[in-house]
């Protein structure tokens, strides 16, 4: 019974962290069709922003939920204005430019913070269930990812801004004809995507030892989750995160964590081969 509970929490946590990792990319890649290979570095910078803010005396939750998204969002804004703006519609070029950016950020952070592992302790204590120790912070991550999904859904579906953004992504010329500036909307959307990436990096920061290269650990997972999710933003995110989270946790418990990671990647390759349009290319069509 205890073990079942623990495994259940672990599975939920795995799914939630995949959702967090991929949400920012889902906005940038899924909506804007910008392949942002610097996504992992955005997350990494979110983590560093949190740690810096905490060291300066800011409350850790404020640092994670407000400071980090703002900082990373602003960095994203600068990047969009300087680089990405010139490359919309050139898929391969954006991919290469953002790869360059990711190397640049790694170098920059190494220069500022040094090539050492930093970290902060988790703000929520763990507790025991029977013979098992459960990390209380896992529940926080699950909560944040649920809240994030609800906010994203609400903004995209229920607000005017979300409607305009979705419309512009579909037909920017139409949006322009109706008097909205696609340039600004792209800028704002990229800001939101970067901010979500920053939030994710910040929330996950207490769980990992942060080094300048830790973005690399996220990027592949984020990409396969978003691509396997397919055209629908939120439904795709939930379905592919659930699938990959369950597969990797199953193999982690059954064999070992490394095999769990490998199983996730193999599942992704098989899934892409079978459903090249992603999960929501076949199921849940037309949902958001």
């Amino acid at each position: 019974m205890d073990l079942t509970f623990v495994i259940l929490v672990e599975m939920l946590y795995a799914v939630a962290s995949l959702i967090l990792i991929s949400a920012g990319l889902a906005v940038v890649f899924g909506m804007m069709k910008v392949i942002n290979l610097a996504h992992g570095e955005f997350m990494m910078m979110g983590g560093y922003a949190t740690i810096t803010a905490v060291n300066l005396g800011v409350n850790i939750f404020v640092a994670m939920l407000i400071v980090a998204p703002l900082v990373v969002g602003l960095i994203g804004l600068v990047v969009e204005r300087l680089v990405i703006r010139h490359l919309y519609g050139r898929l391969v070029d954006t991919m290469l430019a953002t790869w360059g950016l990711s190397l640049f950020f790694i170098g920059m952070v190494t220069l500022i913070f040094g090539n050492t592992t930093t970290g902060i302790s988790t703000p929520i204590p763990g507790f025991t269930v029977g013979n098992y120790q459960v990390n209380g912070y896992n529940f926080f991550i699950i909560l944040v990812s649920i809240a994030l999904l609800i906010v994203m859904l609400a903004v995209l579906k229920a607000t005017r801004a979300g409607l305009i953004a979705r419309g512009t992504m579909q037909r920017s010329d139409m949006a322009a004809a109706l008097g909205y500036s696609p340039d600004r909307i792209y800028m704002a959307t990229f800001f939101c995507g970067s901010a979500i990436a920053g939030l994710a990096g910040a929330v996950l920061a207490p769980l990992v030892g942060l080094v300048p290269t830790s973005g690399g650990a996220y990027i592949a997972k984020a990409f396969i989750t978003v691509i396997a999710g397919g055209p629908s933003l939120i439904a795709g995110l939930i379905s592919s995160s659930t699938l990959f989270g369950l597969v990797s946790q199953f193999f982690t418990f059954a064999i070992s964590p490394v095999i769990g990671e490998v199983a996730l990647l193999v599942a992704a390759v098989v899934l892409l081969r079978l459903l090249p349009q992603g999960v929501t290319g076949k199921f849940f069509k037309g949902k958001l």
Partner: protein
Amino acid sequence: MIKTSATRDVVTTLVVAALLITIMPQLIGTYTLTVLVVYGMLGLSLGLIWGFGGILCFGQAAYFGLGAYTYAIAAVNFGESTLPMLLAVLVPALFAAILGAMMFYGRLTDVYLGVITLVVTLILFKFINSTAGPQYKIGDARLGGFNGIPGFQTLNVPGRPNDYIWGDAYFYFCAIALVIVYLLVTWLLRSSFGRIAVGIRENETRIALMGYDVAARKTVLFAIGAAIAGLSGALFANWAEIVTPGLFSLGQSAEIIIWCIVGGLGTRFGPVIGAAGLAYLKFLLGQQSMIDNTLIIGLILVFFVLFLPKGILPAVTDIWRVSFGRRKRRGARTRRGRGGRQHG
């Protein structure tokens, strides 16, 4: 006409190569030069499948690493280097053929192709990293996980395991291998296979409607690229005398792509010069500790994508043509008429 332009091509290659092989060792030590040559070959492998076949492979490092590991494992087992060299070419080619067949017959294109090759590289990286225990071994060779495999038999004269090829001799060996591979690539691109590959890059549907088996041709080209990368991996293993999982890393894959972009896509010489140039730049940057060299490599890539997306070689060719081409326009045009520029 084709015959003469082909002859001219071969003669130019040989003359330039001979000049470089004689002059360069005077400027840079042969030890550093060897690895530049090896990287040049690796750049050429991606330049072939990406620049001419239009297949953007994010995992060229996988074949590089696979070649190096195959060589190391086989060399430990055989205690001799001839067969391991052959295996180091065949194993990556076979692996690529299987992976390629899976992707191309599934009609996967650009982004999906990129993601799958990236993921496969990651799988290999993670797997090799986790093989530290003594239970992971192939024959006598322990995979060694994060520490890699040191101390294998390095290149020897075929049939005589005690006559090692090393130092200056090894540099000339690698340089000549690169020239041979380069000429083979030239030949391949001039053959009908190469022309159809370029056709597939330009318009896949049209070539398919003409009755060519696009998937099969892409798979073969992909495997050839992997074979070249595998060979360069084996040469690298011989140079470094150790193989580590770092060969499979994403950073390595990134670098190969950057070499091609900077050197110039759709050319044969561009990726080679891009690889050697940037690797040397990295070597020089590594000697100073002021600025982190990832930062500079990143800036170079962003700069090239934004301002010089065609790469150095085509840009230089264009400048050359604008400044000196006018007087010779007639000669230039007849030469270009046979697609000479395409193969630049």
